[in-house]
C-alpha cells in the first residue's frame, strides 16, 4: 500500500523533477526544448500538490483540484506557447532562443 512509502520520497522526486526542469529551461537553446522543461516543472508542481493532498488532507480535495487546474492551465499555456513558437519560426526562421533578442534594450 502507498502508505508504506514516506511522503518525503515523493516530495524529493517532485522537487528534483522541478529543478531538472529549471536546469533544462536555463540551458536549452531550442525554444521547444525549453517548453518541454517548463512542462516538467509544471508537472512537478502538480505532482507535489497531489501527493501532499493525499498524505496530509486525505478527506479533502484542495490539492487534487489544484493539480487538476494546473493541468488545465498547462494545456492553455502550451497552446499559446506553441502558437508563439510557430510565429517566431515564421518570422525569424529559427527557434534558437539566443537569436530571438529583438526586445533587448
Amino acid at each position, binding site marked *: 500500500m502507498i502508505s508504506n512509502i514516506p511522503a518525503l520520497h515523493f516530495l524529493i522526486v517532485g522537487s528534483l523533477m522541478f529543478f531538472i526542469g*529549471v536546469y533544462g*529551461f*536555463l*540551458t536549452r537553446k531550442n525554444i521547444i526544448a*525549453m517548453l518541454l522543461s517548463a512542462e516538467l516543472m509544471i508537472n512537478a508542481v502538480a505532482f507535489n500538490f497531489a501527493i501532499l493532498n493525499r498524505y496530509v488532507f486525505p478527506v479533502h480535495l484542495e490539492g487534487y483540484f489544484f493539480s487538476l487546474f494546473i493541468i488545465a492551465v498547462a494545456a492553455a499555456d502550451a497552446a499559446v506557447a506553441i502558437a508563439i513558437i510557430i510565429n517566431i519560426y515564421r518570422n525569424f526562421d529559427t527557434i534558437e*532562443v*539566443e537569436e*530571438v*533578442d*529583438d*526586445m*533587448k*534594450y
Partner: protein
Amino acid sequence: MVSGIIGTLVLGTITVLSYFTAWQYFFTDGKVDGAYRAITGFNHVWLTLTESLHIDLGVLLDPISVMMLLVVSTISLMVHIYSLGYMKGEDGFYRYYAFLSLFTFSMLGLVVATNIFQMYIFWELVGASSYLLIGFYYKKPSAVAASKKAFIVTRFADLGFLIGILILSFFTGTFDFAALTNPSGQVLGSIAGTSFIGLSVLSWSMILIFMGGAGKSAMFPLHIWLPDAMEGPTPVSALIHAATMVVAGVYLVARMFPVYAIWAPESLAIIAFVGAFTSLFAAVIACTQTDIKRILAYSTISQIGYMMLALGVAGYGGEAGSGFTASMFHLTTHAMFKALLFLGAGSIIHAVHSNEMGDMGSLRKYMPVTAITFLIACLSISGIPPFAGFFSKDEILAAAYTSQPIYFWVEWFVAGLTAFYMFRLYFGVFWGKKTEYKHKPKEAPLSMTIPLIVLAIGAAAAGFIPFGDFVSSDGLAHEASFHWNIASLSILIALAGLALAAWLYLRESSRPEKVAAGFKGFYTAAYHKFYFDELYLFITKKIVFELISQPLAWFDRHIVDGFMNLIGRMIYRFAVAVKRFQSGQMQQYAFVFVSGVVVLALIILIWWT
C-alpha cells in the same frame, strides 16, 4: 519747430519764476536776523526705507540753491533759444527738445533737493539725460562711444557716492540736509568718532561722496569723459558740460560744506588737492589741443578745479568761509562765460562746419557779433578786469593765499595758462591765417546771436554783483575784501599769457611749431592728454573685459555648466551600462530570476531560523 517753441516758452516761464523766487528769497523771505536761512518749500515722503530713513522729494531754498536756480534756468533758457537756430532742420529736433527739457527738469530737481537721496536720484537722472544728449547723433560711432564712456565713468563715481550715502545714513539715520548740515547738529558726532583705517568713518563717507562729485565734475582722474562728451550738439555742451551739470559736483560739496568743514577736514584737504591738481593738469592739456570744443572742455575742467580748490581751502563761517563764497561766485561767472564760449564755438562750427582750429582763421571779418562776444568771454575767463572772471578768480586766489600759499602759486600759474590757451583759441580762430572757405561763413541768425549778447552782458558785468552779501558758508553776509597785491599779480600773469598767445598766434607764423618742438616730449604727452584715455582703455578692455569677463564667461560655460552636463552625462553613461542587463536573452533573465529567488529564499530562511 513747434516742440522747440513749446520747450522754450515753458522754460521762459520757469526762468521768470526762478527770478521771482530769487527776488522773494534774497530780499523778502530769506533773511532772518541778518542770516539767510534754509526754507523747505514742501517735503513729501516718496519712499520709506527703514523706520528712520525715508527718501523725500521736496524743495529746499537757501542761498546756493536759489543761486543755482538762477544759473540753471538762465543758461538753459539761453540754450533753448539758441538751439532754435542751431538745431534747425536737424533729424530728431523734437527728440532734442524733449531731452533738453528732461535735463533741465533733472537739474532743477537736483538743485532744490532737500535731502541727499533726492540729490542722488536727480544726479542719476542728469547723468542719463547727459547720456542721451551726448549720444544725440547716434549714427556717429564716436558720439555713441562718448556717451557710453560718460555714463559709465560717472556711474562708477556714483557708486562711491551711493556707498558714501549708505555709510552716512547708517550712522546718522537721516538723509536730510537740514539735519546733516546743521553746524551744531548732534547726528554727526558718533560717526566722526568712529575710525576706520586711519580716518574717521565720516571722512571716508565724505570722501566717497566727493568721489561722486568728482565724477560728475570731471575731476582728475575721472575727467576723461568730459572732452569726449563734446561729441554732443554744441548747445548741449554749453548747457550740460560747461555751465550746469558739471558743476553739480561743486554744488554737492558746497551743499555738504558744513559737514566737510566742521567734521571732516581731512576730506576737504583731499578736495583741495584734487581741485588744484586738476586745474593745472587740464590747463596744460588745453594748451595743446586743436579741436576748439576740446580746448573749451579742458578749460572747463580746469575752471571747475578752481572751484573745488576754493571749497577745499575754505573753512566754515566768517573770513575763513570766503573760499566758499568765491567758489560759488566763480561757479556763477563761469557758467556765464563758459556758456558764452561754447555757444560762440557753436556759432563758429555752424558757420564753418568743422571743429578743428586748423580750418579756421580770420573769422572776425565774417562773424562780428560772435567775435566780439567771444572776446568778452575770453577776457572774462582770463581774469582781465573789469570782466566777471576777474573778480571771482581773484577771490579764489585770495582765499587760497590766506589758507595754503602753495595752492595760490599753482593757481596763479594756471591763471596764466588760462589766458594763454584762451587767447590762443581766440587768435587762432578769429585772427591768424587767412583761410579760404568753400562756403563763405555767415553770421549766425538772430536766435543764436541774441543769447550770445545776453550772456556777454552777463560775462562782462556779473562781477559787480556783491556776491558775498548773498552767498556765504554760514548764511551771514560776508564782505569780500579786495586784495590789491593778489589782483595785480593775477592781472600781470593774465596779461603775460595774453601777450604770449598774441606773439604766437596773432599772425600766421612758424613760432608755435618752434615752441612745441622746444618742449617736445612734454608737448606730445600733453597733446595725447597724458595717455589717460589709453590707460582707461587698457583697464576696461584688457583687464575688465579680457581678464575678468571673458574668463568668467568661459568658466561659466565650461566649468560650471560643464559640471552640470557632466552629471547628466554620467547618468546617461550609467544608464547605458545598466541597459546591458536587458540583453534580450530570455534564459539570462530566467537565470537571474531563479538565482534571485534562491538567494531571497535563503535569506528569509536564515533570517527565520
